[in-house]
């Protein structure tokens, strides 16, 4: 176990491992997203109250879940980097950030589109919505801070600290629908209860969520290889790859 962890910290070994893990996740992402899209757009039944507008849920919920999971992933990587000084962990946190920011924006954007026909407004300063907006600013802050230090590992510590401080917003997002009176409906998926919607609706939703996760993992592995090669571009093993 410990030799594995130790090896994982070696850029060269990690680069090879990413290459090996990648294809499976790309295939899974492609299949899940294709099946999920067709199922949720054309085959799942319309909602008895919201009609076909509810089909936004199939991108809204996966985007919102990823917006939070990606940040947790970045926080874990940042902790590993700060505690064990493993550079690869910092690189992983770097490559995850843009996708997380995009998912946060997608969650807000699709929520706005859904809000117009169902709530009659595209935005309200509701606890869930506001916490999500803060999440978007946190992503932008993390990306901008890294950008401000220029390339490579300067400022990596500052970015890691900001990420760990920012992760406090994740439970706030999660419990915002419980702690405050909000317009937003409670979570669709919980570990303890069956979803309130019929299987013909939540199964395609689950497929979409898994598809988004697979895509995120595949993309992260791909871009982590880029980042490793870029930062280690002076080593002989990376230069040998250019042949």
């Amino acid at each position, binding site marked *: 176990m410990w030799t594995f962890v130790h090896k994982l910290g070696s850029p060269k070994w990690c680069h090879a491992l990413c290459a090996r893990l990648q294809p499976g996740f790309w295939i899974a992402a492609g299949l899940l997203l294709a099946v999920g899209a067709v199922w949720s757009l054309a085959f799942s039944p319309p909602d008895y109250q919201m009609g*076909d507008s509810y089909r936004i849920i199939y991108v809204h919920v996966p985007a919102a879940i990823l917006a939070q999971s990606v940040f947790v992933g970045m926080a874990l990587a940042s902790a590993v980097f700060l505690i064990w000084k493993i550079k690869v962990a910092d690189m992983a946190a770097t490559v995850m950030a*843009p996708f997380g920011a995009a998912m946060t924006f997608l969650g807000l954007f699709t929520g706005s589109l859904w809000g117009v026909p169902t709530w009659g407004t595209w935005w309200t300063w509701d606890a869930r919505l506001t916490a999500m907006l803060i999440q978007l600013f946190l992503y932008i802050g993390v990306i901008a801070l890294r950008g401000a230090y220029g390339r490579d590992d300067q400022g990596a510590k500052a970015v890691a600290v900001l990420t760990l401080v920012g992760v406090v917003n994740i439970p706030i997002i999660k419990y915002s629908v419980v702690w405050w009176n909000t317009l937003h409906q409670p979570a669709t998926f919980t570990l303890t209860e069956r979803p309130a919607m019929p299987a013909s609706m939540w199964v395609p939703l689950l497929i979409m969520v898994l598809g988004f996760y697979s895509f995120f993992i595949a993309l992260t592995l791909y871009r982590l290889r*880029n980042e490793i090669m870029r930062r280690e571009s002076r080593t002989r093993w990376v*230069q040998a*790859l250019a042949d």
Partner: protein
Amino acid sequence: MAFDSFSAFLTMGGYARYVWPAWGLATLMIVGFVLWARRERRQLMQQLQRRRRREADSA
């Protein structure tokens, strides 16, 4: 099938202007990230090759 015809599918029960932009942006992002990551890889490889050639010339 939840829709009777393809045009009904496109209309989305009157919610086309909410449903399609949501799905459109999601698709754009997924495709965009793939293209971005691939371009990143291509540029990186070109950079590595350039450096290798430079070093081969000076040696």
